Structures are given as C-alpha cells and as structure tokens.
C-alpha cells in the first residue's frame, strides 16, 4: 500500500476545479490518497474529494496569525508527509504552488519536477518542458519522497467515488524562524479566474494598440468565463500588469482554448501557450507566426471582431 499526498488548492474555502485533474493523475492502484487541506472547513470539500478518489483528508490547522505564512504552510505539510509515511506528493504548478512545493521539497531534500504535463508514478518519471518550451523532457526522480508540481488543466479529470476519513493535523505550534509574514495586498479584484486555471484565455498583444482596448478582451472573457492574458509587448508598453503576461518569462498555460489577439507569436510567447488545447489566432497580418501555428486563423482586425463575438454571446 502506497501513501500518496495531494495538496489541495482552495479559493475562499471552496475547492478549485483544477484540483480534480491532479487527483486523477495521482490515483494509483493499491494506494491511499491523502488530501492536505489547510485551514478550511473540510466538511465543505469532503464530498468533492471523495468523488475523485481521496481516501484520507488531512485537516491541517495552523495558528491564526500564520495562515498566510508560506514557510509555515510548507513546514506543516512537510511534517504531515513524514507523519503519514507519504512517498509521493502532488501539488499544482500555480503561483501558490511555485512557492509552496519547492519549499516542501527543499525541506525534505526530495526531488521535485515542476510544471509536469504528466507523471508515471510506478516508474517515478515526470514529463515537463525544457529549453524554453522547445523540448519535452522525461525526468527520473529517486528518493524516499518525491514531489511533482502538475500543470493546471494538463490532465482531464475523471471521477472515482470512494469514501474518506478525516485526519486532524495540529499545526498550530509551527513557526518559521527568521521569516515573518507582514501583509497581503490584493491584486486586481476584477480578475475572477487566474490565467493558470482558466479554460479559455483571450490574450492581447501589440495589436491591441493601447491599454484601454484590453477592456474589449475582458468583456468577451467574462462572457466565456475565461481570463485575459497578454504578450510581453503589451506588458512592456505599460498597458497591462506583468501578472497577465503569458510566455517564457510569464505564465505558462494550457487552457482548452487560447485566443491570441494581435499577437505575432514569437518563440518566447509560444513557449508559454503552445500546449493549449485549441489555438485561435486573430491578426491583420496573415504571415504572423501564430497564424501558421494555430488551429484556426482569422485574418481580421481584432478591435472589430472581438466586440462582435461579445455581442453574439450576449444575445445568446
């Protein structure tokens, strides 16, 4: 019997959809699946976790003033991993995961592969991209404990009903020496869904002409329950914040649909979105690289086409 740990990401006490693909990937025959849930009402997420195969829910409680402290969160999970004899740990390669998982792996001196497309747990192999997204690498990991950061949306969720037991884990005495959480400033609160989790991303590039025009994209994204991304050219022009950048030096995303609007499709942009399910390119230049590296190309002015799409969506 193998014990597998899964770090669950919540959003204001609610479970994020992107967890389910990760749980599906982590499921293995003859194993116990431990879901780590930090500082939340676990009864609210129990049913969802059970429907995807979680057999143990580790209800981790931290001291109230340490809840946002990443060093304390990592230590609590690392302690839990040791306590329950867990051999493989899965987390999400989201912004939160990019801080949390390496902290845990470093503390346990466990190997870690971030941004995995898939994992073969039996053989301790993980696949991720290497060399600016230009190659796919299979990476072998060895150790008592191994850690994987799974790219959101990389794995299709499949249900597998089980029943679970709740294990209380007291982390209230965990502190972090030399590291103090001071405060959190909320980002753009109009952003309802993050780039990493969105099923649909509409990204704008230099072809958007200015920052104000990005509202055209957000209106459309809202109708599609998607997120808005950007090329570095748009970020560097000061039109949108860096947190929206997709690409080699921005977010790496795998949405079901990626709509590139006025984006030429540079190597560095492509590195961040090439694994998207379906790519639609909208450009006034039919020779733009993205127009040749997509599933559907539209030769059109994005400033005219997107409002039209939004209008149709509004009218049903």
């Amino acid at each position, binding site marked *: 019997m193998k014990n597998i740990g899964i770090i669950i990401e919540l959003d204001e006490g609610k479970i994020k959809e992107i967890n389910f693909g990760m749980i599906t990937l982590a499921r293995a025959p003859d194993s116990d699946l431990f879901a780590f849930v930090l500082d939340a009402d676990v009864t609210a997420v129990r049913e969802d976790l059970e429907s995807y195969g979680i057999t143990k829910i580790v209800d981790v409680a931290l001291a109230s003033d340490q809840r*946002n402290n*990443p060093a304390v969160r990592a230590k609590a999970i690392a302690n839990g991993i040791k306590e329950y004899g867990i051999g493989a740990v899965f987390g999400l390669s*989201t912004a939160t995961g*990019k*801080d949390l998982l390496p*902290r845990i792996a*470093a503390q346990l001196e*466990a*190997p*870690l592969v*971030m*941004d995995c497309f898939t994992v073969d747990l039996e053989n301790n192999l993980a696949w*991720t991209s*290497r*060399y*600016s*997204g*230009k*190659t*796919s*690498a*299979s*990476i*072998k990991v060895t*150790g008592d404990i191994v850690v994987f950061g799974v790219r959101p949306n990389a794995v299709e969720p499949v249900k597998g009903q089980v029943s679970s037991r709740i294990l209380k884990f007291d982390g209230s005495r965990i502190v972090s*020496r*030399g*590291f*103090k*959480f*001071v*405060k*959190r400033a*909320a*980002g*753009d609160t109009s*952003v309802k869904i993050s*780039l*990493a989790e969105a*099923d*649909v991303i509409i990204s704008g590039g230099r072809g958007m002409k200015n920052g104000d025009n990005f509202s055209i994209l957000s209106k459309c994204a809202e109708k599609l329950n998607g997120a808005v991304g950007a090329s570095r050219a748009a970020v560097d022009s000061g039109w949108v914040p*860096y947190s929206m950048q997709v690409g*080699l030096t921005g977010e790496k995303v795998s949405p*079901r*649909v990626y709509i590139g609007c006025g984006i030429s499709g540079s190597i*560095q942009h492509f590195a961040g979105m*090439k694994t998207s*399910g*379906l790519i*639609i*390119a909208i450009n006034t230049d039919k020779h733009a690289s993205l*127009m040749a*590296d997509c599933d*559907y*190309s539209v030769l*059109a002015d994005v400033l005219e*086409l997107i409002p*039209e799409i939004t209008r*149709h*969506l509004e009218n049903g």
Partner: protein
Amino acid sequence: MQIYVCVKHVPDSSAVITVLGDNQIDENVIFLLNPYDEHAVTEAVKIKNSLPDSEVIAVCLGKDDAEKTLRSALAMGADRGILVVSDAPHESIEIARVLKTVMAQDGIPGLIITGKESIDAKGMQTMFRIGALFDFPVATNVIRLDIEGDIAIVDSELSGGAVDTYEMSLPCVIGAGRGLNTPKYPTFPDVVKSKKKVVKKIALAELDIGTSKADMWIVGLEPLVLVRKPKEITGDTDEVAREVIRILREEAKVI
C-alpha cells in the same frame, strides 16, 4: 556584507534547439546569462552601492564556457566571479549543494540572490534548496527588496497581481522576479573594466558537496512540437463571429 549572486549560463531563448541522442541538446548555440539572473545581478549591485564595505560575488556551476556569463555579470557590476567547472549535466539538488559549498568556502554570505527561474531547466527551486542547506529564510518571485539593518523586507508577487510582504532576517535568499528592477546593461567602458576582474575556476571534483539520498536526471528529451494545421475562418465580421462561437461551443465545448 558579502552579497552572492547565482548566475546560470543558458541557451538563448530564441536559439534553435536540436536534440542529440537520448537526453542532450546540441550546445552549439548562443548561451547567455539567464534573464531573471540579470535582475538578480542588478539588485545585488544596487544594494552594494548603498552599503559600505560590501562586495558582490557572482557564482556559477557550468562548463568552462560559462565564464562568458560570469563576465557578463562582472560587466554589470559584480566584483568577482567563481566558476565551478563541470562538464556533466546537473539538476537542482546537486546544483544547490555545489553553490552552497562554494559560497560557504569563499566567505560569509550576508545575502544570496538568484533568479526566480532558469529558462532552460525551469526548476523554480534552486533558491529554496540553497536556503535549506544554509538554514536561511527564502522568498521567491521578489519584486521589491529593502535592507534595513539585519532585516530584509521583501514583496513577493502572487497570482493575479496580489503581493505579499515578508520580513526576513539576514542572511537570507532572494529569488528575483521580473518586477524587481530594470536590468542595468553594461556600457562599453563597463565591459573593458570588467576584463580586469577575477574569475576563479574550481573543478567540481575539488569540492566536497556531501551526498544526497535523492536524485533526479533527464532520461529522455524530444522536440516539443504539436503540429497544427490552421484552418482559415473567412467571411464578414458577423459570419466569422458566429463561426468562432460555434467552434467554442461544439468543438472545444467551453460554452
């Protein structure tokens, strides 16, 4: 204060990558200083200039050729460089052990700055491993760094542009994010001046990095090409809009 900055020699992001054998690439391409490490060096030099008696030491594990990347760091203002020379490929567990050993042997780190990610390996973990080996606090994706006495006050960017502020006691490890600063690229005189700076080379075999029970290595490498055959959507704006919506609804099933 001794400020160490870790710099990695990586293939240019626009280089054509050719896979050789099972798990290697043709390294006959342009290599340069990892983009995030440019922010790391720039920040280290900025701090040095505000703290008397401080020194910036750039460290790197790489092949002999990685001296070029150390020279770039020196031209950007680092005072000297240390290159641990090894021809073998290394993953972060080992890289961190090597960098930790060489820094501890060289001096007393007051601050260690890395990039938040290397663009070739994108391990996103070297800074945390260095921190764990030294038992120093760590923050990554740092977009603001202020040193006040023996405390570092940092802002770390989370998703959706949210920002956390942390206080860390020095010595600590910082993973530089893009918003930290605008890299200060060297002028010609900077480059000339940096030629006189020292890069010390140490063979990996000369270091005792201890052993880890954990390991990781690349077993297979393949070009990541997802061949797409674009279909053109044509018609007037109304027709194109309808077709896009049909694709979203019927093919992608996202609405």
